[in-house]
């Protein structure tokens, strides 16, 4: 199980390293690898019934009592199979699509990372794990959208998707933590059994979890990242942004539906947001000409449809949501691959330039027609059943049912119209302009996957026996919370639902016939408005950049003296504040100097130091200031000699020497030394210096009162020889007893060195320009 889930990461590494050397071999290896993962998951087929679940736990961080748990129930099994089967098909497609792309190794690696993360997400057995995989899918989506990183648009879209989805992920994390605080468990199985109704954080949990789900599943007002994510290569759009990743939000809603659906506001919010998104995005889809954007908006709309259905919450509505999830993955994955073929073979994604392609790309056309059939919801496609269920659920909903019904009717009619445009217009209809490339048929690995997907969507409704009992029933039972049967019947008798369906087809056909006029009428929807969420997003982003610029100009103004001033001010305020807040005043201040006449020589370094200080004040050149200050340093170093700390003293001498030398080297480059001219600034510096010095003195006086004996001291002194094999306690502490600290310190030093190299090479570049 662990290998099956995490094997994707290993495959990703292999692809990243070796793809360039053996492109075909590694490409097919990844397909076979994912296929075998799928095969492994198929062994669970039929072993999970009704509301059962299985857990696979692995020790992860035993000291924190955190385990890696894979939780397998009907719902996660359904998603696993969806992800791994789609993964296989889409990687096969990618082998053809990415042929000859010099960056293809990166692409395969990202795709595999995403797939493994997505598998981890749907199988997460504890909620921290759920969050980690959730963000991993966001990050891999970011990398994939920005795959063509030489294009500004791709980079911007990637950043947008990351900020929106990962930001939502943070809200999700907060929500999950609140849940686990209420239930006192991180374990998914335990949480799903728990009763949340006594929790004091109910409303907060609801808002946070919904934020996570809505951002990931592109619900209004967070929908705008998904159409922009179409900057990614087509396999990404098919896999992440229609079939799997955007379904993570739906997965989350379905997963927590039994737990959260009783909270006030859950149902209403989901129904309203879902319905609005459904209609809004369907209209926007209709006015687009770029086929990928058309499909992207339909995805947003379809996600809204699922959200609204989950909001209704009745058994039949959940069935509708769930079936539509499967249907949508099948037809949309297929259509995206078709769009990829069109782009790849004819060089354009503009539907005005595409037409009469059926003869030139027969297999692609077949896939497109079948998928459109499914999208329009004609029988016998599974789409028909899903749509009927949705209408039925809407008509029988206890409240706000008319909203969902109206919305789903409008959206479905538009789907029918768009299905005609894609399935008929592109392949059989006339084109307005000619495409930039003469169309070629696509290679087999590029038409087979869409055919398989669309064919499944079209015929699975008929051949549904095995699918139903082993996958759909357990998955649905998990969502609903009790053993449930899925009925995939086409004929329910002549009733309102059927009438509604027939009217949908008629209106949809009308939309297709009058598409140009309607597009003009609705063109206002596609414009950029000042209050549009995307506009606000960019405005916020600009403001944030401006703010950080102001902040960095204020704090990092290039004057060393200002940095030191700020640092010392904070030190004085924080340390001094704590000091007096805790009431740590020294009890006894010695008034007489502890002079013993046989150690008068100790005054020699002290005199030197005092002399140094005075000289610093009266020096007018940097060199003099430096040398006077170093007198202070060397003086301190020699004081250590008298207090039997030769190690410290040696170190201090050496460090002081090197500092002085380095300073001398830099002096050349500094501008002319200027004394602080402003009286006011001078004054504030003096005050700060006095405060800081006074604070240090106080602390030293306090330290004197702390008894010098401690068990650590005894431990180190007695154990140094037997355990550390050395008599120099300081050194033994450094390299043996506390070697971990030293290891951390030298690592930091190494990183500093890298920073210095980067900075100095930056300087050289500037000079050359």
């Amino acid at each position, binding site marked *: 199980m662990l290998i099956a889930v995490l094997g994707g990461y290993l495959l990703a590494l292999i692809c990243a390293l070796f793809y360039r050397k053996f492109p075909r071999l590694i490409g097919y290896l990844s397909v076979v690898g994912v296929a075998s993962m799928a095969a492994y998951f198929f062994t669970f087929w039929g072993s999970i019934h009704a509301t059962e679940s299985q857990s696979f736990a692995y020790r992860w961080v035993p000291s924190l009592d955190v385990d890696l748990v894979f939780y397998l129930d009907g719902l996660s099994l359904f998603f696993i199979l969806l992800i791994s089967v789609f993964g296989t098909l889409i990687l096969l497609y990618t082998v053809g699509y990415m042929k000859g792309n010099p960056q293809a190794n990166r692409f395969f690696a990202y795709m595999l990372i995403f797939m493994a993360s997505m598998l981890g997400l749907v199988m997460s057995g504890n909620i921290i794990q759920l969050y980690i995989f959730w963000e991993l899918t966001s990050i891999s989506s970011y990398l994939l959208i920005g795959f063509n990183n030489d294009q500004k648009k791709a980079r911007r879209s990637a950043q947008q998707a990351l900020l929106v989805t990962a930001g939502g992920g943070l809200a999700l994390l907060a929500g999950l933590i609140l849940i686990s605080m209420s239930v006192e468990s991180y374990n998914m199985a335990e949480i799903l059994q728990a009763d949340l109704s006594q929790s004091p954080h109910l409303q907060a949990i609801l808002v946070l979890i919904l934020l996570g789900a809505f951002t990931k599943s592109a619900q209004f007002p967070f929908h705008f990242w998904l159409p922009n994510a179409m900057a990614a290569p087509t396999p990404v759009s098919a896999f992440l942004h229609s079939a799997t990743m955007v379904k993570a939000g739906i997965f989350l809603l379905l997963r927590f539906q039994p737990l959260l659906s009783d909270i006030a506001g859950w149902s209403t919010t989901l129904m309203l947001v879902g319905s609005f998104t459904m209609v809004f995005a369907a209209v926007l889809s209709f006015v687009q000409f770029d086929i990928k954007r058309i499909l992207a908006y339909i995805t947003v709309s379809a996600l809204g449809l699922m959200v609204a259905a989950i909001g209704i919450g009745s058994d039949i509505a959940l069935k509708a949501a769930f079936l539509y999830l499967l249907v949508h993955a099948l037809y949309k994955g297929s259509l995206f691959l078709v769009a990829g073929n069109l782009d790849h073979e004819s060089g354009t994604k503009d539907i005005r330039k595409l037409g009469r392609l059926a003869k030139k790309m027969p297999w692609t056309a077949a896939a497109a027609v079948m998928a459109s059939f499914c999208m329009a919801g004609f029988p016998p496609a599974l789409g028909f059943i899903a749509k009927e269920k949705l209408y039925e659920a809407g008509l029988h909903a206890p409240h706000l049912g008319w909203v969902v019904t109206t919305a789903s009717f409008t959206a479905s009619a538009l789907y029918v119209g768009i299905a005609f445009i894609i399935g008929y217009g592109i392949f059989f209809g006339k084109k307005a302009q000619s495409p930039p490339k003469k169309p070629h048929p696509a290679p087999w690995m590029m038409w087979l996957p869409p055919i398989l997907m669309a064919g499944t969507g079209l015929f699975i409704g008929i051949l549904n026996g095995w699918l139903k009992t082993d996958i759909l029933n357990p998955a649905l039972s998990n969502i609903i919370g009790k053993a449930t049967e899925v009925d995939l019947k086409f004929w329910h008798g002549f009733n309102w639902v059927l009438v509604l369906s027939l009217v949908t087809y008629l209106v949809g056909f009308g939309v297709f016939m009058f598409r140009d006029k309607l597009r003009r009428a609705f063109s206002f929807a596609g414009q950029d408005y000042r209050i549009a969420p995307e506009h606000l997003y960019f405005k916020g982003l600009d403001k944030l950049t401006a703010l950080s610029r102001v902040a960095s100009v204020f704090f990092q103004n290039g004057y060393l003296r200002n940095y030191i001033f700020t640092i010392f001010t904070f030190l004085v305020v924080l340390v001094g504040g704590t000091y007096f807040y805790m009431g740590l005043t020294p009890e006894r201040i010695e008034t007489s100097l502890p002079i013993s006449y046989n150690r008068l020589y100790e005054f020699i370094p002290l005199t030197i130091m005092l002399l140094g200080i005075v000289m610093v004040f009266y020096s007018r050149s940097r060199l003099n200031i430096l040398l006077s200050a170093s007198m202070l340093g060397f003086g301190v170093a020699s004081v250590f000699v008298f207090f039997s700390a*030769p*190690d410290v003293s*040696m*170190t201090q001498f*050496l*460090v002081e*020497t*090197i500092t002085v*030398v*380095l300073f001398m*080297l*830099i002096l*050349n*480059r500094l501008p002319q030394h200027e004394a602080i001219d402003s009286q006011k600034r001078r004054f504030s510096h003096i005050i700060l210096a006095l405060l800081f010095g006074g604070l240090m003195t106080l602390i030293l006086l306090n330290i004197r009162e702390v008894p010098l004996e401690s068990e650590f001291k005894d431990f180190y002194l007695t154990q140094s020889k037997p*355990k*550390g*094999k*050395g*008599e*120099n306690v*300081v*050194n*033994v502490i*450094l*390299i*043996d007893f506390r*070697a*971990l600290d*030293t*290891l951390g310190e*030298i*690592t930091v*030093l*190494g990183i*500093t*060195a890298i920073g*210095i*190299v980067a900075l*100095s090479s930056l*300087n*050289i570049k500037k000079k050359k320009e």
Partner: protein
Amino acid sequence: MKTLILARAVRVLLPVFVLFSIYIFFRGHNLPGGGFIAALTASIGYILYAMASGVSETEKVLRIEAMTLISSGLLVSFASAIFPLFVGYHFLEGLWLPFKIPLIGKVGTPTIFDLGVYLLVVGITLKITFSIIEED
């Protein structure tokens, strides 16, 4: 700051600095000294050399790139920290050879750890100095 006297003197003194730093390194276990101090001693030698004869000359004498010193220092320290894990002890646990090596004394993983510190500190002081001098 290229003066003939300093350049000649440093050329003679450099081996002394390095030898002395090696001495300090090994005496560190029982008497004041150790990797850090030894590294500073050695780097003062090289810094003087660089001031007298320039960076490129010093790099020739040093033979190894400062950055290589830094990374290999880290590597040596980490290796000495991880090594006990492979022979069934704890991370960073000190393992010692059972006998003394003449002139050097007892040798164990902490000594190797200290060697890593030594290499890294020499590397970083020289890297900083070189990048400052080079900019002229």
